């Protein structure tokens, strides 16, 4: 019996040992930071007042305060501008309240005609909070220069990616249009070119027919499987606009002065924006097929003349489209039979987030989600930098290599993200020169939101000075 007792003791010792403490590893968190949400605001965008937003790095768990110093050139506090809360001795003190994530200063413009040389700087000088640090966007400028930078979560529209979003970095503005709200883009530059909407996977092929009424459903039936995106036939790149964005390489040939040289085109209208909810992390881009049209485009002096009809129609509609040089394109919609507003004015955007028709060598045209193009028509240029060569934070204007700039609008393209891991590549960032010559560095932060849902890309950018 002694032996049994022995073993029981041994056994219990073993089990007690086994169930003893487990040591949890603890990771060190970043300090508590209060910072400006962005780096600057343009004076011209402020009518009477504006809010200067401050964010906390995490929810405040106690009360504290932050001090912000104002330095102004060519503007006088109390005379040209003031703030709420009021600055005392050029210092604003803002409370940090338990449970809050942000705070704001209201900037009031008292002098409607502030000078172009006016520069008002808000700088965080101290944060009274446990384990805090001053870092990130710790100062904020109000002046008349190009935006210094911020981070933007782009409203692509979630997993269906229903929007084309246009971002102007220097103005710090975004605008968007629904992807399937337009079909054709009539180029407003010198060339007479017409683009198709690659964001809904349109495709088009010239027919050997010069009378639009001659084309019928049956006469093009055999072409339908061919004139499409993603057919894995390398030759199908002829039916899409060149992904590089060169206006001289559109699927539809240059519109000729001679009507006899402008054939009828069979147009695959692509797909509506998807409506289904895919599994988390996936995208559901394409909805129902939008059908087919036959079109013929002619020239009337400096105007385009668009003839279009459904395949079996024996008559057609005709629209004359006049060039508007403020924009890259006049966008036309078959659904509304009219021009629609899609892009901002041609020099008022730099990059666009959109679904895109690209091509893969050997496999032909291929649809891409989460794509980023640049405003090639207004001369926006970009190039990619590997972090092995330069650190993003350290990269300055001196490091810019002008010979690397490329007009190819696929330069950023899909290279910024890895769809399989639903993450951004952290080993690269981009340099962009906008139509006004401002040079920015751009780093992509996310392809999904915090829930892991696709279609919520986020990036930050900074002006190189």
């Amino acid at each position, binding site marked *: 019996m002694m032996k*049994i007792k022995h073993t029981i003791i041994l056994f219990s010792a073993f089990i007690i040992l086994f169930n003893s403490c487990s040591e*949890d*590893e603890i990771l060190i968190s970043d300090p508590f930071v209060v910072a400006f949400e962005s780096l600057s605001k343009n004076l011209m965008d402020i009518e009477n007042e504006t809010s200067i937003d401050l964010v906390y*790095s995490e929810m405040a768990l106690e009360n504290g305060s932050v001090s912000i110093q104002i330095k102004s050139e060519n503007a006088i506090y109390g005379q040209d501008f003031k703030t709420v809360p009021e600055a005392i001795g050029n210092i604003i003190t803002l409370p940090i309240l338990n449970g809050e994530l942000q705070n704001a200063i209201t900037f009031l413009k008292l002098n409607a005609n502030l000078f172009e040389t006016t520069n008002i700087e808000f700088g965080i000088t101290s944060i009274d909070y446990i384990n805090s640090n001053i870092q*990130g966007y710790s100062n904020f400028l109000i002046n008349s220069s190009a935006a210094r930078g911020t981070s933007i979560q782009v409203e692509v529209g979630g997993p269906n990616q229903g929007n084309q979003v246009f971002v102007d970095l220097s103005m710090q503005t975004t605008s968007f249009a629904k992807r399937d709200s337009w079909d054709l883009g009539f180029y407003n530059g010198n060339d007479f070119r017409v683009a198709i909407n690659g964001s809904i996977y349109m495709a088009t092929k010239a027919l050997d027919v010069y009378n639009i009424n001659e084309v019928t459903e049956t006469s093009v039936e055999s072409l339908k499987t061919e004139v499409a995106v993603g057919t*894995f036939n390398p030759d199908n790149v002829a039916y899409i606009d060149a992904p590089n964005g060169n206006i001289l390489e559109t699927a539809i040939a240059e519109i000729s002065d001679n009507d006899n040289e402008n054939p009828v085109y069979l147009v695959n209208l692509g797909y509506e924006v998807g409506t289904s909810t895919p599994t988390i992390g996936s995208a559901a881009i394409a909805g129902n097929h939008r059908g087919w049209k036959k079109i013929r485009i002619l020239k009337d002096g400096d105007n385009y003349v668009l003839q279009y009809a459904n395949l079996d129609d024996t008559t057609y509609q005709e629209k004359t489209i006049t060039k508007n040089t403020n924009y890259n394109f006049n966008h036309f919609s078959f659904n509304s039979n009219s021009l629609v507003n899609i892009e901002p004015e041609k020099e008022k955007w730099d990059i666009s987030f959109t679904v895109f028709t690209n091509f893969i060598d050997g496999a032909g045209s291929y649809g891409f989600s989460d794509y980023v193009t640049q405003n090639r028509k207004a001369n926006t240029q970009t190039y990619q930098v590997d972090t092995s060569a330069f650190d993003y934070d350290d990269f300055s204007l001196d490091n810019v290599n002008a010979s690397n700039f490329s007009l190819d609008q696929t330069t950023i393209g899909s290279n910024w993200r890895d769809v399989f891991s639903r993450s951004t590549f952290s080993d690269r960032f981009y340099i962009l020169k906008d139509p006004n010559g401002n040079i920015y560095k751009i780093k992509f932060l996310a392809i999904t939101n915090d829930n*892991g849902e696709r279609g919520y890309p986020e990036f930050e950018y900074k002006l190189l000075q």
Partner: protein
Amino acid sequence: MILNKNYFFIYFSILFSCLIFSQETTKDSLTVERLEQVIITGQYNLQSVNKSVFEVKVINRKEIENRAVNNLADLLNQSLNINITPNTSTGKSGVSLFGLDAQYFKILIDNIPVINEEGVGNNVDLTLINLDDVQQIEIIEGAMGVQYGANAISGVINIITKKSSKYKTQINAFVQEETVGTEYEWFDKGRHIQSLKVGHNFTNEIYGTVSYLRNDFAGFWDNKQGKVYDIDDGLRGHVWLPKAQQNIKILLNHKKGKHNVFYKFDYLNERINRYDTIVDLNHNSSTDTNDPLGSDRLFKNNRFIHHLNATGYLGVQVRYNVSASYQEQTKDLETYTYRIRKDEKTNIEESEYLSRRAFLSRGTFSNLIYTNKFNLQAGYELTNESGFGSPLAITVSPDDENTVKQRLDSYDVFASSEITISDKLSLRPGVRVSFTNLFENQYAFSLSSKFNLKNNWQLKGVVGSANRTPNYNELYSRLVDINHNVQGNPNLNPEQGFSAFVHLKKKYTLANDKIKAKSRISGSYINVKNRIELIIVNISPREDKYNNIDTYKSFGVFSENAFQYNQFRFQLGASLLGISKVLNSETNSEDDFLLNFQLNSNINYTIPNWNTTFALNFKHVGKEQQFVQKTNEEGNQEFQRGVTDAFSWFDLTLRKTFLDKRIETSIGIRNLLDVTSVNTTAFSGGAHNGPPTNLLLGYGRSYFLKLTYNLNL
């Protein structure tokens, strides 16, 4: 507390040496089992191995204990013709028998197929089969469609559990601590197993057991950093996913006269944690701070098995064996965002991932006609099976209804007879018809024969057929978007398997009857027709669809030999298998036979006065070739011979009992040759990434200690 490797060894050795030196000098209590092994699988009556017309390979309890293995995957990786490859990214274990994967053979527990989230009997994850209540494991190679129905093409593995005890009360508890390679800590590293089993004879007629087992595998970390790691350098998570299993089993056995009834309950819970390798730094540009996030997954597997069985005699001769079983396995997926630094789970979403439920009943009636020359068995088997797959688990279009449900009802009847033509020759023809709701009527045939030749030679020939039912993906998957058009095919037919095996056996003695020996040499042929493969049905626009198109063939020759000299046992086996795959689904494919050589051996030696057994197990898997589609220098697709390098498993264990077997310890080394992965060129790259260049097989040399306490009252 965390023990480092050195402390761990010191601890182990102290514990072990204490036990060694505390031994008493008791008399040899080991009674060498000389009784002929009795087998059950496919037999009309309990039958000795030698009398069976089938060739049945048996792994008995002692071998399981000698190796201190706890699940079927770990046990079978030393067997010839079976290859176990862990799937490190799902935590499941992949297995192939004669080069055919787990869809082609069936795992049975007490003659009843065991459920898995992807199949009934087939597709079983061998790591989910615990061996704590196993009496013996019977392996039959070759198609067993008549006896065991669909999917028993390359073979059947039947696990026979213990259902009685000679003691009034039996308490058995053990703890087992294993290192995973060199990794070991009390909680976060290594493998920790605890088990408690209580058996009791309530009356002479009623016996019951309750057992609990917990098997906590903390994963293989290698250079990875686990869950609490906030740097995005690809090191978060584990190389092999950690998983924890808990298994409760209850048995009630009632025996009265000619009848025996048992009810068995088995509940298994498994949790597999997948911590995302990618750390989303969640950078806040404004504050220049990070709040790193991981998109983590927790798979929760719950399996219930109820099995009610009755055996006995109707009248004087007809032996019945009827089982009814309800089983279900549900795999749920919990996805969540883990705020790594705050140890906080957010966005928790739970959903059913894969599940399967089945009601099964199987009955055999033997000796329906029973004469010296002729014995007839008839049986039925019915399976009502329903399965579910979520879009996360299988590819379905998001526009479809969000789930795929499948029902498969099959009603089978089968009959076979044993015809004794002379005392030398007996034959056993059999046939099965299966009526199902999804497919046309399926038939299976078998013909086995046994010749007893002179001088203890025995020749067995076994031919049989069986079909494989198409799986979920093959029937119902759907991936249609702008760039893809891949579709399942509800009109698929089951694949047709056929096998022929020849076994020549002899029992003999050597060295003046001092060495007892058994040798067997076998030849195998397996053919699977109408294999299902995804093929391009339209070039432009491209459409892919599953179709019955390919053929698989294998020829094998293998030999197994066992020798016993006093307390010394030695076993040696070798096999050479040639596999040819005719891929009509691909152009320019190659169908040459590709050879694979395997060798296995084990040595057991028992020192009687020490109550100590040494066991050494070795298996060598030769270089394996496989045709893979690759792009050649001219940029064209062609089939090339990909090669997976050879590797060997080598385990060493030492088992010792104390205090009249009340205490038992095992200590051992697994994977002595420290194999982790082998180089391979046998994979083709995916559409979006290159091929893997090595195949993970193990986690390196590991050590274990098992302490068992047995109390028999």
